[in-house]
């Protein structure tokens, strides 16, 4: 069920780290096309609809380091990096996080580089714990208490 194992994700994220930077948490998430489009595609034909949704789904590996939040768009079984976005932890944009029974949702409302993805608890080993830890670290509530 897990898309990637820990070593491949930590190795992929590790290549993006600066000297002295430590990787603290990592998680695998996806961004699917809008729900209306998924329903429309599935109503047209189930199998082509499912394949179309898979083709239009973007996969992400995110990592929280001592200095930054790294977001890598990846593809394939070998976790090949396509795009890299990073946010300085000291200057994080407004974040909205939500944890349900299956998914942890993370939204970053940055006008220049917005980000949204959902992280399934079975996405990779300990995905739930890692994604919740990242959500807790970047959400505005961290300033309270």
């Amino acid at each position, binding site marked *: 069920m897990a898309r990637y194992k820990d070593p491949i994700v930590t190795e992929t994220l590790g290549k993006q780290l600066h000297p002295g930077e430590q990787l603290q948490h990592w998680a695998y998430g996806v961004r699917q096309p809008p729900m209306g489009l998924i329903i429309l595609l599935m109503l047209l034909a189930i199998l082509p609809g499912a394949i179309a949704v898979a083709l239009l789904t973007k996969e992400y590996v995110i990592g929280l380091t001592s200095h930054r939040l790294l977001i890598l768009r990846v593809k394939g079984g070998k976790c090949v990096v396509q*795009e890299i976005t990073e946010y300085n932890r000291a200057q994080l944009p407004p974040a909205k996080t939500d944890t349900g029974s299956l998914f942890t949702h993370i939204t970053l409302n940055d006008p220049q580089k917005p980000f949204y993805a959902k992280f399934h608890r079975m996405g990779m080993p300990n995905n739930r714990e890692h994604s919740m830890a990242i959500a807790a670290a970047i959400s505005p509530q961290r300033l309270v208490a």
Partner: protein
Amino acid sequence: MEPAAQPFPCPFCGAQAIAPRCMTCQRDPRSPRRICGHCQKQTPTNEPKCMHCQFTPGSELSWKVPVIVLMFIVAFVLAVALQLAK
């Protein structure tokens, strides 16, 4: 010490940079970037051509949309053919 003030290797040119601008390549070393499909180096997402090899990538949707449309056409043709065969 403020982490943003520490120099780090610029992802685009490799020189030591301090955000918000690399003094060597004049780019923001923290800006969104993509991996060039031709030379495999990092290049800014907001620049249409690769800064290293001038390769211009096509949109991913340029092949995905035709494939999706083709799949639905095949499914429709198959459904009609099966109905006619009955």
